[in-house]
């Protein structure tokens, strides 16, 4: 399966990066696994998508209300606004953040922070099912998400585990494996654990 090129890195650090979408409003779903390139050609950095947003490309620019009644009496809303203002595709930009959860070097996946962040302007690909299955076989990346100090860390991890479980040959077994790992990591925080387990079982 060919992995789809969906955007490029526009801001990067060791722990997270921002992707600018090639196509307006075309962002991968929250919690998807994506990977970004690096000028160190051997290196490819993996991350989980969160905080998808669309706004003005121009710093300080702000979208304005455009729908409603036109001077000829016709009304237009929602998708019609984009048809009526084709220039919006060129002045708005869809972006999202990705939390770094590991990297790949020489075909080996490692669930630690990479030696280098993704390189700004390098391509970002949406991982295909084979890659997601391969990356999520082991649960070592859970720790990085839970400790990321993100307000939506639990939501992000729960969604990523559900995506991963759906691809496994034995879904039930994977959920049990993930549940045990979560119980170990959150043994001192019963409330968080309960919310996460409920996400996996609902």
């Amino acid at each position, binding site marked *: 399966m060919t992995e789809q090129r969906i955007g490029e890195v526009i801001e990067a650090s060791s722990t997270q990066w921002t992707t600018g979408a090639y196509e307006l409003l075309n962002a991968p779903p929250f919690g998807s696994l994506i990977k970004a390139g690096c000028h160190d050609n051997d290196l490819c950095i993996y991350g989980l998508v969160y905080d998808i947003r669309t706004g003005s490309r121009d710093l300080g620019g702000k979208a304005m209300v455009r729908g409603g009644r036109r001077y000829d009496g016709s009304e237009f809303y929602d998708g019609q606004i984009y048809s009526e203002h*084709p220039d919006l595709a060129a*002045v708005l930009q869809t972006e999202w953040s990705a939390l770094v959860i590991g990297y790949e070097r020489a075909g080996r996946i490692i669930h630690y922070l990479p030696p280098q962040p993704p390189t700004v302007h390098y391509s970002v690909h949406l991982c295909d099912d084979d890659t997601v299955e391969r990356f999520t076989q082991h649960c070592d990346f859970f720790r990085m998400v839970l400790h990321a100090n993100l307000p939506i860390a639990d939501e992000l991890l729960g969604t990523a585990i559900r995506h991963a479980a759906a691809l496994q040959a034995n879904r039930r077994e994977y959920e049990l494996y993930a549940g045990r790992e979560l119980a170990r990591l959150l043994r001192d925080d019963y409330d968080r654990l309960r919310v996460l387990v409920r996400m996996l079982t609902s």
Partner: protein
Amino acid sequence: MPLDFNQVGQQIKQMGGDLRQTANHHDQLVAHAWAKLEEQSPRWEHWARHAEENYLRSPWLLAAPAEPIINRYQLPKFPPNYCLAAVDGSQIDLDRHWAVECYLINLGLVTIQYGQQPYSKLHSVPALHYNDQELLLRDKDGRSYKMAGALVHAERDTREGIALARLAQEILEQSTTPLVAMQDGTLIRWSLSGLDPWVRAHFLQRYLDEGLAALRAADVPTCSYISHPKAPEVTGIARLIVNPTLNNTNKAEGLVDPYPGINDTKLFGNGWLGDGERSALFKSLSKINVEEYRDHAIYFFYLNVGSELARIEMPEWVAQRPEWVDLIHAVAYDQAHRGGGYPVALARAHEQAVVRESDRRVFRQMIEQALWHARLNNGSSLKQDAKAQVRV
């Protein structure tokens, strides 16, 4: 020391009162001017001829009506599909304090297609000039003119016109949707008026031949949009009607202006044009337009776009085709509405072209780095460096 708002507040209050009085006086003058224009409107051909014969003698700018002066037209039927090509430009002028003499012209080019196949393309084209041939204009007698200030501005204006023609030609190769080419500001190159005749011709001939003539050859309705216009040319007709012989009535002060402080925006701003309506067409009788624009002479009408009065200019070969004048009328109004009062395509072209202060700083740093890499002396002036930072 901060501004003393107690004192300024008093002065602003005084100004507000004075302006109200002036506005009341202006309303009376506008009413008087309209009465004259309405009365003489059927004789528009006489006044067109009279204005063309006297534009050089007149102390006021004049226009020649191309139809009855008080004609007005409702908004024509809106074209369901149209494409708009728009260009705007900006420049980084030559700065003698810099380490190297150069200037940059940045053009913003915009194509927006509306209707069944909506589409947009926005991009900018920067061009850096640093060769001796580019920095000095030489006439046939060997006189040289440095490309700086007004000349860089003139070059930018010229390039905008040429770029618009090329953009329109590219669009026509790919699309059959009705196309309108629009520029920001006036098509009359007033800024060239004060230049040396050879320099003026150098810029104007390129603008006319490679810009307007190319647009004409490509059969493209071409116009420009002026927001908040200050021109006094239609009011000039009223002035001429009041004083047709242009004889001195007061030797000490010269010809007395019957409508002091009145321009066309004030004249048409009295509610004469309803929302979406345009005025009659007029030919501008500015000297450069009459004497040097030949068959591209600029005509104009005023358009009430709802939020303000705009002046729409077009060359003679556009003004002579009523279906094109209608198309431009509808497109200018539609664009202003889509853009919240100002044509969206022109706003986008400006956004593409504008060179911000931060861009200027980066541009200068890049030049200094390039000189350093080329092992050239980075001899920027100490005065410039001193201005760049406050030493305390």
